[in-house]
């Protein structure tokens, strides 16, 4: 694919991101702000995880530090400091970079599991310390501030915050992309492949890893500061393990081997939680399930699959692939339906409400309502339906995949390494 076509695609995407939000309601604007922030955070994380091969389990630390740094600057601006509001994320960048230098110096002394554990420990340390440091992190309640107007821009509406966020995310995303084309960006990939050889080619591998870590932490800090600007508040829960875990899940579901893969994962998961979390309390379970399935059946992530499809689009026999592909998608949807049905049924039957109704009915199994329909717990249809969905969907999916493999000549799928982050730019 020509780089012109990619640029055109990005231009269209940017035009949509600029033009559409004014027509959306407040909650959607807010959701898009969160999508942008999560995207930048995931890109920053993937610089370390995907490109340098250093899997950090504590990136919440630098995200959180960026958020607090921006809030402290906002408080200073409230107190009269003349600092342009649009440049607030610089505080997050600086704080993230410095924290990354220090933490990275120690964490990158080790690699693999030990690196992951040190990063996890650093984030946990902050998470447990922050509630006790009232001056810096505002205790358990956290700290709050207000966005101050600047040069006639009030920064009162969510839309203004959205455009500010969009600008910074575009700037940092572009910067991170340009990074991959510099000598240091190529060195980063070499570090992932073979740190020892890098050392024997005359590079101080440890120093290089510290710099990669600090740059990743800097961009994470910008993402954190954008969240602080949007929420006007932050507390110690920003350092929590689930913040660190979210960015790992998003990055790997999106695809860590393709530059824009993490953006796909971040967008998907953020919108997923925005749309689904109101509907069901099991949404975290679904999110985990998606992660496990992607890791099992598409380890290069969604971005990796898309990249392979685009790369091989001329070799693929679409006329013969279309039908099995449709069949697989239908099978997957039926399967997903069955899983959702069973999960939600379990949530009802083992829930507290139902336990109370059962004790009210002297241990019998009263009927319940789900998806707007009444169900008998012991009814044949209640259990026949998921069985049909699971078996039928699974069968269609397996048969469809087999046909696809047949058309593609049962060639084993090319490994993740063929992705652009590995090739010559």
């Amino acid at each position: 694919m020509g780089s012109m076509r990619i640029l055109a695609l990005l231009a269209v995407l940017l035009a949509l991101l600029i033009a559409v939000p004014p027509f959306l309601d407040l909650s959607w604007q807010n959701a898009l702000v969160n999508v942008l922030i999560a995207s930048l955070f995931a890109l920053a994380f993937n610089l370390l995880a995907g490109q340098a091969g250093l899997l950090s389990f504590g990136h919440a630390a630098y995200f959180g530090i960026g958020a607090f740094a921006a809030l402290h600057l906002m408080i200073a601006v409230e107190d009269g400091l003349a600092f342009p509001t649009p440049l607030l994320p610089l505080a997050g960048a600086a704080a993230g970079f410095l924290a990354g230098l220090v933490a990275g110096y120690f964490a990158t002394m080790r690699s693999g599991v030990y690196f992951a554990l040190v990063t996890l420990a650093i984030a946990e340390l902050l998470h447990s310390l922050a509630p006790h440091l009232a001056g810096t992190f505002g205790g358990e309640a956290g700290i709050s501030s207000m966005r101050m107007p600047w040069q006639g821009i009030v920064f009162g509406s969510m839309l203004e915050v959205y455009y500010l966020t969009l600008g910074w995310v575009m700037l940092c995303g572009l910067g991170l992309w340009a990074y991959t084309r510099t000598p240091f960006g190529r060195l980063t990939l070499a570090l992932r492949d073979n740190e020892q050889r890098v050392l024997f080619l005359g590079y101080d591998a440890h120093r290089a890893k510290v710099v990669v870590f600090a740059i990743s932490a800097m961009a994470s800090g910008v993402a954190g500061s954008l969240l602080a600007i949007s929420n006007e508040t932050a507390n110690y829960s920003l350092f929590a393990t689930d913040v660190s875990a979210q960015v790992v899940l998003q990055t790997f579901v999106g695809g860590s081997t393709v530059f824009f893969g993490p953006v796909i994962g971040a967008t998907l998961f953020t919108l997923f939680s925005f749309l689904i979390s109101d509907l069901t309390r099991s949404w975290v379970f679904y999110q985990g399930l998606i992660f496990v399935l992607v890791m099992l059946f598409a380890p290069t992530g969604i971005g990796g699959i898309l990249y392979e499809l685009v790369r091989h689009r001329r070799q693929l026999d679409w006329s013969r692939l279309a039908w099995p592909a449709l069949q697989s998608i239908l099978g997957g949807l039926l399967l997903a339906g069955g899983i959702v049905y069973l999960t939600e049924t379990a949530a009802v039957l083992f829930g507290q409400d139902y336990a109370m109704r059962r004790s009210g009915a002297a241990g019998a199994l009263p009927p319940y309502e789900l998806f707007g329909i009444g169900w008998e717990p012991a009814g044949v249809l209640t259990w026949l339906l998921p069985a049909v969905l699971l078996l039928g969907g699974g069968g269609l999916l397996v048969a469809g995949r087999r046909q696809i493999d047949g058309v593609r000549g049962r060639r084993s799928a090319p490994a993740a390494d063929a992705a652009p982050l590995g090739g010559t730019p």
Partner: protein
Amino acid sequence: MSPTTNPPALRLAAVSKSFGPIDVLQKLDLDIAPGERHAVIGPNGAGKSTLFNLISGLFAPSSGDIALNGRSIAGLSPHRINRAGLARSFQITNIFHRLSVFENVRIGVLARHRVRYGLFRSVAHMRAVNEESAAVLARVGLEPRADTLAGDLTYSEQRALEIGMTLTTGAEVILLDEPTAGMSREETAQAAELIRSVTAGKTLLMVEHDMSVVFSLCDRVSVLVYGSILATDTPERISANRAVQEAYLGEETS
């Protein structure tokens, strides 16, 4: 360029290395003149790999000194020793598997051009670096494979790439660790020819099991047995040396 009064390209003086109670190398002395091609042979476990790891900086010697062109390098980290002018290859192929062949070489060339940590220029626009990388690939015969992923090369191509990467940083002293290990007779002959051409004018120290390569390539040979140098001489005199025959050659040559 260097008169004979110059210090040896590489000098080992009473170098010892022990891992805990085990003495792997004992009071090793070795001088390698600039431009010399020197082979180290010896049975498995004699300490050849440890010797290379000491010289290239993976380990520090327990005692003794190692000097490169008269300057001590003992105990320096590998990247400093590389910058001082010594490069090594590895017995087990040690390349960047998920980068292209071209990019494997370019990482080393970038180091030589001192843009190691360049963050504000596009590497695609560095003409001198890219031309030099292509030239290195041409020298090791991998130019047609420039865009292939290094992990997809054949074994002997990977060995050639390994040698190419060793050349990139512009070092004058080259250490090659069993460059022909695992190759067929034909591939071995090709590799020996390649080594001869690419190390012309440089100082070469190599661990090599294949005696035909040693004979065709090297000026002098050192025999390492149980952590000590048994003898250092020309290949012909080494093969005639009774002590060497008993210790090593008698068992291995056929």
